[in-house]
């Protein structure tokens, strides 16, 4: 069986679907070759093609007028000249091949690729200039272009394309890179549009609609109905003559051409006189009616008047006007579509309206645009000091080009009366006109821009209070700065009742008195501080007006003080907004208010625990709404942290145990976090080693100064680690377990910690965490580093992890932590009843994002169940 011939010869005349398909196939081959050309080669071709088109501008103009019977040779010469020269000039240095831009620091590169085969539908009104324009921008972008000419203008359109093709090929372009249909029909036009990669469909609404329904991306343009307003501040002579110049250009066949002029009452006569003086003819009322019936038939434009002179049209209508008449003007009133003069006329026929006010003129223009020019062009003549009117005009016109003091035919196509409006013969009309582009079409619309993005790491940081003071007995020394260095006058102390009643505040007050700093103390902070409590503190603060806040206590007192600080500095804040979760603290939606403008914040911990003295976190409970607001922002960092073990010697056993194991959890989660860095690792490692070695001692013998000191340092260092690396899913789960079943935060963490470690250490997790620096699941190795630092080693990684976990379990036992949630007296049915809600909330907790393993809710549920039952 003989195989079908794959290489169909391309017929010389494209007049059938088969011939067209063969032609397009060959063009695709040519384009493939063209797509490998360098910028230098392309620019040489672009130059040669533009030069050739420019040379033939007069013959092409003559051909166009002769063939279509429309327009003015001299004006078509300008259009051809413009299409060659202005397009070349604008884009001669534009990069359209290969790498367009590159930023090595960000690892980003933009690479231009040609689209492939461009289908071009060319209108009869600008048959040669549009052909020159479209072929030139296709060559510049290494695309092939196949032209579907209008049957009324096919010879001149094809001739323009041939001239550009011959010059391009002579300059090195592949043979047949520009093609055309020789015998146009709707069937072939549709075939071209269906098969091409993109359509440049300049044409009437019918053609544009066909282009869009072809299923290929289309850059179509539609009808215009450019309304002009002449404001009473305008330079009338310039305005009228600009309009005449533009409206008579090529006998009014440019789609951006003026169709109506709305003149403000005050200058109406002046405008009319100027039009008459410059050779325009105002139709008398019976003549208006004659012209109406001549230009529009059944709501459609009479083909016989398109691109004809004013004299010819008047003659057709049976109206006697001087032969040199420039424009026929009908003074009409209605802007409704039923008024023939309100239409696009594609001829030197103009409607003129009178408006009492600028507002009325705007309304008329809006209606005219809605009638038939959505998205195209509008025009305004005005004194440019009238900023307000101009802004109102720009806001109201639903057109993609709004021209000021500019002849719109010339102005709309760009670069003639404004040099930042891109030159083009295809004017996008936006979605108003059913178009995909709203600007003047150019080479960039014929390129696929590829973005090459290399992996880059996030910028990380290490942020901590400007002053972190530590060592036994450092508190009074540190506080001295408030008076001697900073000259503070009023200090507001926040603490809890227990500490206050037991005299912990006395040394601070003594020191403040000594320095002559006025002070007051709010000591009503309870565990899990409430919004009511913080509001009361704030009220007192607002009365007292401190320039310094001193928080003394555990996490509760320090958190409450942070909240009061926020409300004191910014009484307007909304907690809902501040508490909004984020993926990346630097990209969060809410911008935290600037802190520290009223008061300097000093944090003095009395437990070794939360690390709140160095963290940007605070939790507050709105007991009325039953909502916990976890706030996180570096604005919440205290300005000074004073870690003095003298404040920590009398922690009760339960507190030592619970807050001590919390420190361990902070250190381990910060170390395993996807955001962990060498900076936070050092802090975390030292902290966890301290806990492992000294927590049992501190628990057994609270008076052991060394153990207390090591735990105080561990707490603060772990705080700094997780203030920057954040935490993980153990904390997410502990937050909800504590909230639902009233377990102390440290205990809740302790019950989950080793389960989560095993879970995170999985080498084949269901999903890993998303963070640019986090390359692959490596948490097992990370835990091994922790174990080794703490002096624990096994025969392999898994064994080391097992031994490390055993050591942590041993630690928990030594400090009196029970094995399961059940052992803490939480009833099974209560636990199970709340389980699903806890799971969902834990999954959604702010801490989950930094976990190295991205948890499924079912996995969190399993972890909770294991923690409850111990298996």
């Amino acid at each position: 069986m003989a195989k079908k011939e794959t290489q169909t010869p391309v017929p010389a005349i494209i007049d059938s679907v088969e011939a067209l398909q063969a032609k397009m196939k060959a063009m695709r081959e040519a384009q493939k070759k063209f797509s490998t050309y360098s910028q230098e080669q392309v620019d040489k071709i672009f130059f040669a093609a533009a030069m050739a088109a420019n040379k033939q501008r007069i013959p092409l103009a003559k051909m166009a007028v002769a063939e279509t019977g429309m327009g003015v040779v001299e004006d078509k010469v300008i259009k051809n000249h413009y299409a060659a020269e202005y397009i070349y000039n604008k884009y001669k240095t534009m990069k359209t091949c290969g790498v367009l831009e590159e930023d090595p620091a960000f690892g980003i590169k933009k690479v231009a690729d040609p689209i492939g085969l461009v289908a071009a539908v060319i209108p009869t009104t600008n048959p040669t200039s549009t052909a020159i324009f479209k072929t030139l921008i296709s060559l510049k972008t290494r695309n092939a272009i196949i032209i579907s000419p209008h049957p009324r203008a096919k010879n001149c359109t094809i001739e323009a394309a041939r001239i550009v093709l011959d010059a391009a090929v002579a300059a090195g372009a592949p043979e047949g890179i520009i093609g055309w249909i020789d015998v146009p029909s709707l069937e072939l036009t549709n075939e071209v549009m269906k098969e091409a990669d993109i359509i440049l469909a300049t044409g009437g609404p019918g053609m544009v609609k066909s282009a869009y329904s072809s299923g290929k991306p289309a850059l179509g343009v539609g009808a215009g109905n450019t309304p002009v307003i002449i404001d009473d501040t305008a330079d009338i002579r310039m305005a009228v003559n600009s309009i005449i110049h533009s409206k008579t250009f090529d006998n009014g066949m440019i789609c951006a051409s003026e169709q109506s002029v709305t003149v403000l009452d005050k200058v109406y006569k002046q405008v009319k006189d100027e039009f008459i003086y410059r050779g325009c003819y105002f139709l008398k009322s019976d003549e208006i009616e004659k012209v109406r019936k001549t230009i529009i038939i059944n709501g459609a434009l009479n083909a016989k008047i398109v691109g004809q002179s004013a004299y010819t049209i008047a003659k057709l209508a049976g109206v006697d006007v001087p032969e040199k008449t420039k424009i026929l003007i009908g003074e009409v009133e209605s802007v409704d579509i039923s008024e023939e003069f309100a239409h696009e006329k594609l001829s030197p026929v103009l409607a003129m309206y009178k408006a009492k006010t600028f507002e009325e003129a705007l309304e008329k223009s809006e209606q005219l645009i809605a009638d038939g020019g959505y998205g195209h062009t509008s025009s305004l003549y005005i004194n440019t000091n009238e900023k307000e009117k101009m802004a109102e005009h720009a806001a109201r016109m639903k057109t993609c080009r709004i021209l000021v003091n500019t002849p719109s035919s010339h102005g709309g196509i760009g670069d003639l009366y404004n040099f930042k409006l891109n030159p083009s013969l295809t004017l996008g009309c936006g979605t108003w006109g059913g178009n995909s582009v709203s600007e003047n079409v150019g080479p960039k619309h014929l390129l696929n821009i590829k973005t090459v993005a290399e992996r880059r790491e996030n910028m990380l940081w290490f942020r901590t209070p400007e002053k972190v003071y530590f060592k036994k007995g450092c508190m009074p020394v540190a506080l001295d700065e408030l008076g001697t260095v900073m000259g503070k006058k009023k200090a507001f102390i926040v603490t809890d009742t227990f500490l206050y009643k037991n005299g912990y505040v006395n040394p601070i007050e003594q020191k403040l008195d000594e320095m002559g700093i006025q002070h007051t103390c709010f000591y009503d902070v309870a565990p899990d501080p409430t919004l009511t409590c913080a509001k009361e503190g704030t009220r007192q603060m607002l009365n007292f007006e401190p320039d310094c806040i001193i928080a003394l206590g555990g996490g509760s007192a320090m958190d409450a003080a942070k909240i009061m600080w926020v409300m004191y500095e910014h009484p307007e804040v909304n907690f809902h907004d501040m508490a909004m979760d984020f993926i990346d603290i630097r990209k969060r939606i809410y911008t935290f208010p600037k802190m520290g403008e009223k008061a300097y914040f000093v944090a003095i911990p009395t437990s070794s625990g939360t690390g709140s003295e160095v963290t940007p976190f605070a939790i507050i409970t709105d007991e009325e709404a039953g909502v916990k607001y976890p706030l996180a922002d570096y604005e919440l960092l205290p300005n000074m942290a004073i870690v003095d073990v003298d404040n920590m010697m009398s922690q009760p056993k339960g507190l030592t145990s619970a807050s001590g194991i919390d420190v361990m959890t902070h250190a381990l989660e910060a170390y395993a976090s996807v955001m962990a860095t060498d900076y936070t690792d050092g802090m975390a490692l030292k902290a966890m080693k301290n806990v492992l070695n000294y927590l049992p001692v501190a628990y057994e013998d609270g008076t052991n100064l060394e153990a207390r000191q090591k735990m105080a340092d561990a707490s603060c260092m772990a705080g700094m680690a997780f203030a920057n690396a954040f935490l993980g899913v153990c904390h997410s789960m502990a937050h909800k377990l504590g909230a639902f079943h009233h377990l102390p935060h440290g205990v809740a963490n302790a019950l989950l910690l080793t389960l989560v470690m095993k879970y995170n250490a999985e080498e084949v997790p269901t999903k890993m965490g998303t963070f640019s620096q986090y390359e692959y699941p490596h948490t097992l190795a990370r835990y091994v580093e922790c174990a080794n630092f703490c002096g624990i080693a096994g025969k392999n990684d898994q064994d080391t992890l097992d031994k490390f976990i055993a050591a942590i379990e041993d630690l928990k036992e030594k400090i009196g932590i029970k094995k399961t949630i059940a052992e803490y007296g939480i009833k099974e049915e209560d636990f199970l009843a709340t389980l699903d809600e806890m799971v969902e909330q834990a999954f959604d907790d702010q801490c989950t994002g930094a976990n190295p393993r991205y948890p499924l809710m079912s996995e969190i549920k399993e972890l909770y169940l294991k923690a409850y039952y111990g298996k």
Partner: protein
Amino acid sequence: MKLDQIIATRDKKTVYKTDGLVIKVFNENHPKSDVFNEALNHARVEETGLNIPRVAEVTQTDGKWAIVTEYVEGKTLAQMMEEDPDNLQQYMNRFVDLQLEIHSKSSPLLNKLKDKLNRQINSLAGELDATTRYELHTRLDSMPKHTKVCHGDFNPTNIIIDKAGTAYIIDWAHATQGNASADAANTYLQFSLYDQRLAEIYMNLFCEKSDTAKQYVQQWLPIVAAAQMTKGKESEKAFLMKWIDVFDYQ
């Protein structure tokens, strides 16, 4: 069948009345498929539930094909409009309501109006130049594609009102499914050919009752004018040409 009472004579057919039946006898050379197609169209429209005379049979008489339908005793709406001009508005109301009722029906197997119009434009190669046909095809191609039942020759002579005042719509030879505004454009054209005043009354009423923009119906006028031109009436040619030779905005 006794064929002695002629009620109408046309180029291609003669219509007789007998025993409560209408017999449409086609000329000898009339294509058989056209006859069956007309009967089939008619039957399809019957099934939509519109009030129309039923097809009784397709038969042959003296070697000529014929379609037999029920006879309706009454006056055409055209006669009534002529005899009672004072109530023209009322008749026109009835007329438009009937057309809208047709448009409310669907009959998925009827021929497509768009296909028919495309064929008609193609067949005008002798009358219209390639550019004009191209413009007409482009215009037709861009019009929305609908599937409403269209009578195709909806004018007051095709509506019979019986003594009880019930209206019957007859002559379904041109029935298709398509865009109702095209059907309305054709009706407007039929009016325009002999009375522009009636045409305007009709157009306004149709647009008002169907909530259609006049421009939208007008967009079909060049196309239905071309379709009308296929009938080859020399006297209409100049008038139709004026409607056809319009310019799509560019």
